[in-house]
């Protein structure tokens, strides 16, 4: 279906966003000698092997001990290093929340928490590993920046860009092979939303893997004469409230789409921005207060209502409320 659709962005290749991280990590390691890596027994899964091979002295395998990894990373910053920690999103957040809170966020440490296998699209491993609360936990922390790029190229660009930003960052990415629809070697601006498609009827704010679903949804809606604006909210915190308010001032309604719980996710941030500044009808696409389960990524997105078809439905609901 996607192939015959006239999407405004197209792709010729699919790749996992974690590979974008791994390639970006190697590149930023070559550019910046202060960048160091830590991993809790998931070097292959996080694609950190190339960096480890090229810079063995700047890489620390810490074993299956994530709490210690966060503390060691915080300590490394004191000597001016820029540590990138690597493990699954679940073990990057919930398992080590207090370590991040005290030793990294409260202490303002320049640690880059790099979290793979986030969300339902982790797939067959099931709900123990499919964290859907991580963005909520991280965006609640003062001083924390939260980034969820959409494809291989954007993840690579974000991985490189965060080294130049002084402060703690949560970088979220995933496992499935996903369309590469944004440009190679793009400039990544933390905190700056990217309006990918202009439209006047509805604003779709999407983050992570669901940006592609939003691009598909826009094409489906266009076939029905609905002009949707698609905004890539790769940075969830700090939120680009100006871009959100500018768009909704024009369209008068919005849909958010994310691979995360509705409670505490990006949609909550957008809702807060709208309610406080420019109340407008809003529909939210995300996981509604449930855990995930084992299955193929695309089947899970369908079952939990997180794909382009569900974004289209949400747009129709919100347009009816305008």
């Amino acid at each position, binding site marked *: 279906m996607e192939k015959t659709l006239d999407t405004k962005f197209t792709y010729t290749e699919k790749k996992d966003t974690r590979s974008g991280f791994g390639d970006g990590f190697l590149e930023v390691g070559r550019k910046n000698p202060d960048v160091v890596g830590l991993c809790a027994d998931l070097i292959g899964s996080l694609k950190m092997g190339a960096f480890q091979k090229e810079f063995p002295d700047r890489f620390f395998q810490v074993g299956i001990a994530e709490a210690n990894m966060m503390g*060691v990373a915080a300590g490394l910053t004191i000597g001016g290093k820029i540590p990138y920690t690597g493990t699954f999103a679940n073990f990057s957040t919930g398992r080590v929340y207090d370590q991040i809170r005290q030793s990294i966020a*409260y202490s303002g440490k320049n640690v880059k928490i790099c979290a793979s296998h986030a969300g339902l699209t982790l797939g067959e491993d099931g709900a123990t590993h499919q964290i859907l609360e991580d963005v909520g936990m991280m965006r609640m922390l003062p001083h924390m920046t939260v980034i969820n790029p959409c494809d291989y190229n954007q993840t690579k660009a974000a991985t490189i860009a965060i080294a130049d930003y002084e402060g703690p960052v949560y970088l979220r990415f995933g496992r499935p092979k996903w369309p590469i629809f944004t440009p190679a070697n793009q400039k990544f601006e933390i905190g700056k939303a990217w309006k990918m498609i202009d439209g006047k009827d509805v604003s779709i704010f999407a983050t992570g893997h669901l940006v592609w679903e939003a691009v598909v949804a826009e094409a489906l809606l266009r076939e029905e004469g609905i002009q949707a604006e698609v905004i890539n909210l790769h940075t969830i915190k700090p939120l680009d409230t100006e871009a959100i308010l500018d768009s909704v001032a024009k369209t008068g309604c919005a849909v958010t789409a994310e691979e995360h719980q509705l409670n505490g996710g990006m949609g909550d941030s957008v809702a807060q921005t709208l309610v406080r500044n420019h109340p407008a009808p809003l529909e939210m696409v995300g996981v509604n207060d449930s855990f995930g389960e084992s299955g193929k990524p695309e089947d899970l997105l369908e079952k939990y209502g997180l794909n382009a078809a569900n974004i289209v439905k949400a747009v129709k609901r919100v347009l009816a409320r305008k």
Partner: protein
Amino acid sequence: MEKPSIKQLKEICSQVRRDIVRMVHGVQSGHPGASLGCTEFFVALYFHQMKHNKDFDPKGLGEDLFFLSNGHISPVWYSVLARSGYFPAEELATFRKIDSRLQGHPATEEGLPGIRIASGSLGQGLSVAIGAALAKKLNNDTRTVYALMGDGEQQEGQIWEAAMCAPHHGVDNLIASIDVNGQQIDGPTDKIMNLLDLKAKWEAFGWQVIETENGNDIEQVIFSLEKAKGMLGNGKPVLNLLRTDMGYGVDFMVGTHKWHGIAPDDEQLASALGQLEETLGDY
């Protein structure tokens, strides 16, 4: 700068103890017990052992670094930092009060000179010290990293993750001490969660373990820290079991968990100060 004599160090200890009980009394809150017990250790570190700069540089390149994992004994650290010149001693009067840089537990948020990371939620400081020690190695900085933990804190799982990590990565520029006072909030450690043989445990994790039999004897503390320094550089970290008396220096506070986290009243303060000579001038 010439190192102070043992007599001078003892005088500093007396003043630090006065600061501790006055700070905790002043706000009727805080943790005097282990602060008093660790006074000789802090004075030995800051006035005798460490190369450090009171013109505070958070990165501490070329300096020895200290990390306090059991952050609740902040009164002793704040007093020693002030008496070392990191900030005016008068500021000790603001301890735990609103708008103060001297938070209940050490923090960087308010920019208090001398503090490099927040602590208080237990179990995290050794990991941080390992990271700082690894950074020193990457920077070809040959100075030493020191850390202090509590004995009750040994019940935290992260301590043992860190214990496993440091020898594996050859962190041999690190001297960690445990304040073994045998007490924690709810009672004696052997009743709450028995630590059994800490020496055997740390040795089994690959550390070189030394013991300071009387951590309230400043000469013994210095002897241990010198000995520990001599054991660095051979691929293994050093652990110092620092046996102290909680509440040392104030007779009615000694050796009981009851003074872990409560403040003396006016009468108790007067009694405590009567036992501690004012040597550097009260703040």
